[in-house]
């Protein structure tokens, strides 16, 4: 079709006469279009994120314009720019494969020189939602801050400068780290780093609440005074300085941003040259891992586990919590959020000790989609399960491995929350309730694993469902959680009744009752899920092999 249609004998020039920029811009647009063509779901997601970004950007511009004349306008503009620039530096590490035009290792085989290539890559990077958002932010900031002709003139330079520094920052970070990002270790790290955001969001939300109480924006001024001199925020700082008439400062700030752009381009070029002229060492590095672990198959604490399928499955499950980045990320997130929510709420005096049940709920969710966590390696399990009894032992072992972590952790969270609140009287009751909830989650999780298995993509920190199975995942999780809440109803009811009837002194009864009830629920769930699993082995394998 394409190559074969070229006229015979005429060699295609190595670099097109009109330059690389239009070629790369067209390539980027084509890739974008083809990506959207792949599935309607992806198209919907893209359009939705585009609309959302545009709305957000418009809101930001309107907000910044409204701030015009406000004393803190400069502070807000400078800090927002810094945050967005930070995003530019960090985001490509999470989405390394997000933009194929920008992956230089794909271009290694082409006869291209670094300098024209950089121009083309930079131009291609300027197309997309991110640059549009940044442009809106920079424009809005200039409108908010600029007073007078000189400031507007500085603004005209500052807007493209800010955008270019942001894009060049992202490019140089990616290019410098591409070997790491495309190696196995790097991908593992990227998957894990997703939880930094998940956990960070919790802290940010508490920080924002704290800020709200501590006197608002003016408390940020000292930070802004520093950031004002950091590129690319310094470009917008220059607009503010020019508005105040301090032209020298403005010039200095502009120069800082311009120098930063130059430095980033230089760094980028250096790593680009290195990347395109030296052999790929990522696989060599991966194979270099020395094998210094010693001898036996069952070492350390694992030797305490029982023989047979139970111990074997528990051992593998626990190893995967530590070694598989996807499993690890979901565990660490659950552990962190399960602790942060009740304890920080308690520390702020706004929480109840019953928030501690949150930990049991978060951790119990790990029982869901057990076989999806195996990926297509589930075939090994499928080949060794030949009866409902085998499936029962398999599921029970997975639940036991989970309990090995969740049980002590639930106790810990409950005790810490009680200690922070000083509410020791309610402790046994809350613990009992947590155990009942945990049991209900294990039961519904086992059933959901058998009935609604789905694939977990192994790459990317934020993709936990493959396209087309999102509905399945939601049914499984949401339905399971509602069912778990209903199942723990008797214990919740008992708690409420003891409170209402004024039997607070008998709340400790909830501990044995909840523990017994939770154990029963978990046993029942696994018992019911076992024959379903044994009957549906090929269907489960097909469902979890799409990642």
């Amino acid at each position, binding site marked *: 079709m394409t190559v*074969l249609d*070229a*006229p*015979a*004998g005429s*060699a295609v020039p190595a670099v097109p006469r009109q330059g690389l920029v239009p070629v790369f811009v067209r390539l980027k647009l084509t890739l974008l279009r083809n990506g959207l063509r792949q599935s309607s779901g992806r198209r919907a997601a893209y359009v939705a994120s585009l609309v959302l970004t545009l709305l957000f950007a418009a809101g930001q511009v309107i907000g910044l314009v409204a701030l015009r004349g406000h004393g803190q306008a400069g502070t807000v503009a400078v800090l927002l720019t810094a945050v967005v620039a930070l995003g530019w530096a960090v985001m490509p590490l999470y989405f390394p494969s997000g933009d194929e035009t920008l992956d230089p290792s794909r271009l290694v085989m082409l006869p291209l020189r670094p300098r024209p290539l950089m121009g083309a890559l930079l131009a291609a990077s300027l197309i997309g939602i991110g640059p549009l958002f940044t442009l809106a932010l920079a424009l809005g900031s200039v409108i908010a801050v600029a007073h007078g002709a000189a400031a507007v003139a500085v603004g005209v330079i500052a807007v493209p400068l800010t955008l270019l520094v942001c894009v060049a920052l992202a490019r140089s970070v990616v290019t410098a780290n591409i070997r790491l990002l495309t190696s*196995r270790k790097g991908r593992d790290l990227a998957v894990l780093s997703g939880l930094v955001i998940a956990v960070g969001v919790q802290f940010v939300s508490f920080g924002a609440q704290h800020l709200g109480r501590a006197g608002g924006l003016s408390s940020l001024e000292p930070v802004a005074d520093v950031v004002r001199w950091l590129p690319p925020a310094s470009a917008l700082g220059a607009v503010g300085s020019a508005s105040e008439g301090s032209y020298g400062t403005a010039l200095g700030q502009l120069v800082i941003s311009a120098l930063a752009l130059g430095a980033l381009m230089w760094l980028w070029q250096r790593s680009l040259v290195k990347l395109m002229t030296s052999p790929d060492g990522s696989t060599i590095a*991966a*194979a270099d*891992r020395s*094998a*210094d*672990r010693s001898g*036996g*198959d*069952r070492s350390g604490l694992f030797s305490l586990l029982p*023989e*047979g*399928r139970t*111990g*074997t*499955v528990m*051992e*593998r499950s626990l*190893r*995967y919590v530590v*070694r*598989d980045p996807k499993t690890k990320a979901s565990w660490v997130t659950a552990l962190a959020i399960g602790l942060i929510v009740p304890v920080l709420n308690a520390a702020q005096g706004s929480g109840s000790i019953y928030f501690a049940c949150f930990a049991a709920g978060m951790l119990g969710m790990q029982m869901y989609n057990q076989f999806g966590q*195996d*990926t*297509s*390696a589930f*075939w*090994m*399990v*499928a*080949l*060794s*399960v*030949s*009866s409902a009894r085998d499936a029962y032992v398999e599921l029970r072992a997975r639940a036991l491995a989970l309990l090995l972590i969740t049980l002590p952790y639930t106790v810990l969270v409950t005790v810490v929350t009680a200690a922070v609140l000083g509410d020791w009287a309610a402790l046994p009751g809350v613990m009992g309730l947590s155990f009942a909830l945990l049991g209900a989650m294990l039961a519904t999780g086992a059933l959901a694993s058998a009935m609604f298995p789905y694939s977990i993509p192994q790459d990317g920190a934020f993709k936990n469902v493959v396209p087309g199975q999102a509905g399945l995942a939601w049914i499984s999780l949401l339905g399971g959680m509602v069912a778990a809440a209903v199942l723990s109803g008797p214990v919740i009811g008992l708690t409420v009744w003891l409170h209402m009837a004024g039997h607070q002194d008998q709340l400790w009864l909830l501990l044995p009752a909840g523990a017994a009830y939770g154990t029963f629920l978990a046993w029942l769930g696994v018992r019911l899920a076992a024959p379903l699993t044994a009957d549906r*082995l*090929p*269907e489960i*394998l*097909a469902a979890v*092999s799409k990642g």
Partner: protein
Amino acid sequence: MPDQADSAGGTETAGVAPTPPPAVRVEGLWKRFGEQVAVAGIDLELPAGKFIGLVGPNGAGKTTTLSMVTGLLRPDMGRIEVAGHDVWRDPVEVKSRIGVLPEGLRLFERLSGRELLAYNGRLRGLPGAEVDKRATQLLDVLDLAGAQHKLVVDYSTGMRKKIGLASALLHNPEVLFLDEPFEGVDPVSAQTIRGVLERYTRSGATVVFSSHVMELVESLCDWVAVMAAGRIRARGTLTEVRGEAASLQDAFLELVGAGVRDTGDSLDWLGGAR
């Protein structure tokens, strides 16, 4: 019936017996994926104690067939027996008798090679000490001893195939199913795999493997089934299938109806003036 199954696992009797019981019997096997018919009514008997090659071009239905025979994929229709036991009605008997190395499915990659074998052997109900002994020997023979503590995720393609083969052999199965065991494997590893498989079949066990490399099949197998477009086109001993043709490759191309395509003038610039 039990006698037949036993003799298939026996030592020298299988080769000499006048009518050896089939290792695999397939009747009227169908599988459809949406509009696409992957397997269109297969009837097949694979003799026990042989080195059997299932050959065919890409998309012929080899992997689908092997998946159904090993119980990893549910057929739309048809009956499958392995060593005289129905795969879907009697999984306890079948699963303990077969070893499988599938293609395109992962292993538990976050285990080291040794841990993977330990996991697999214990899952199959072998005692721990026996698993460790067999694992050590298999790792040695397959040249993986040096990498036994490395995670499988860091293994090369050849190493993955070898550790997969070790997992499949660990419980000493009667019938071994290997899907493209030599695909992407370097010549040294291929030779190692070959040696192990030849030794294994000499003991009277059956190996069924799929491939599209005819030279390999010709040099390894003594029984061949040719598949194309979801159907069996030919079956029998190597000489029967080869017939008059000079090599299995020629016989195969004829069977699947792929003549040598003439490119004509369409590529005349290739190799021309630069």
